[in-house]
């Protein structure tokens, strides 16, 4: 699930959400995403079983 959070990723993801970003902000957001990816690393390494449900379980 590793993702290359480069400026192209930011531009296309932001466009999909109708977010207009200046070139400076594209760069800053990409840097934030890269820092998040470092912290998220241990999370993405966890191998889950199909039975491992989300903590978000809807109770009507």
């Amino acid at each position, binding site marked *: *699930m590793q*993702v290359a959070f480069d400026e192209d*990723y*930011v531009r296309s*993801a*932001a466009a999909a*959400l*109708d*977010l*207009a*970003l200046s070139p400076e*902000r594209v760069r*800053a*957001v990409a*840097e*934030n*995403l890269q*820092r*998040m990816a470092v*912290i*998220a*690393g*241990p*999370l*993405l*390494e*966890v191998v*889950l079983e199909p039975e*491992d*449900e*989300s*903590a*978000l379980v809807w109770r009507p």
Partner: protein
Amino acid sequence: MTASPVASHDGSASAIAQEVRSGRISATALARTTLDRIRAADAVLNAFTAITEARALAAASAVDAALARGADPGPLAGVPFAVKDLFDVRGLPTLAGSAINRDRPAANRDAAAVVRMQAAGAVLVGTTNMDEYAYGFSTENSHYGATRNPHDTERVAGGSSGGSAAAVAAGLVPITLGTDTNGSIRVPASFCGIWGLKPTYGRLSRSGAFPFVASLDHIGPFARNVTDLALAYDALQGPDTADPACSDRAPEPALAQLDRGIEGLRIARAVGYFENKAEAAVVEQVRRAALALGAERTIEVPHAEQGRAAAFVITAAEGGQLHLPNLRERAADFEPLIVDRLTAGALLPAAWYLQAQRVRRWYYRKLMALFADVDVILAPATPRPAQRIGEEMFSVRGVPMLARPNAGLLTQPISCIGLPVVAAPVGTVEGMPVGMQIIAAPWREELCLRAARALERAGYGPFARDAA
């Protein structure tokens, strides 16, 4: 009996309530004194965003009137309190530390927590400063200014509930309310050297509190002693259908249990992640406090790094999504320190967010297994003491890192799965206070508070500059 405005109490909520209920001091005189004290001190501290003078005097007058007609105003009779400026206060815009929220209409009712505190007799005197939208651990807010740590005004108070912690630490009010998504009660409690309680997720109603990360948000109190912490916690308990996360459990009052002692409780100090991610001097203070509780045993909390990562991703994704409309329309009005972080969160892959929510349950199961063998876990609350205002970086065990997001390194693995925690003041490092987390299994707040009381009896208490 003549009600004297002269303080004959120690400034604690319990003593104030006793004096007011007995008629030895009037709630109105006390409110006036408190308002004067806040105005004088806040020019330096910047802990408050609003002072609710007219409301405070009216509420205090109502307490005095109730007493005059023989009614009991409640266990917090006349006790001044303040709330983080994300709790709705009728007649005020709920700023949540933002400039954008100034344009929202004033709240037309009080948050549930404010209603409950007032029903117990407490008197609201103001709202307190915070990081914008609670996304931070330092209360360096470019719209409303940084809140200064009362023990060294060049340093941060912690965040995001920094104003609430500073107000209590400075002795301006005995009780304040804050919120904790990733550590926003525990980090400022640690930095300001006071007690804080983050109850179990779902224990206290968040109705009327501006959200940050719905699946992680908690509310809780700060105080300068454990009795006051329990008094406020008990006043806040009870189901509330207006908050979908709020449990329907009946209140489980903690105050009466405080003095049951800790004999027979299995208490262990967390090592591994919780030692490696804190400065050695902080770990040493926690080790000493653990010994004061008779806890020589150590325990490894499994997968804490994954728990922290899950909390981090959930926070970024939910926070970013919550603010997406304003990120589109009013990006320039956000706090410069967080706008790019919020935007980045909104762009995270859905697969990461769902992995985080699944890992959260997986991690919860691993940790619950620990509680078969231990009742209370002790761990540092912050990696180090408060950094200087404006300081971008700090280092932990020689590793440089961004200061603002990493102050919550040790709190995030705990709140990720909603465990109850008391943050306890346990000493100083570099002349500044540091705190310890007292952690228990879900719905066992009373164990955290009993251990906190035992620590208090062993001589631990709020940091005082003169005594340091």
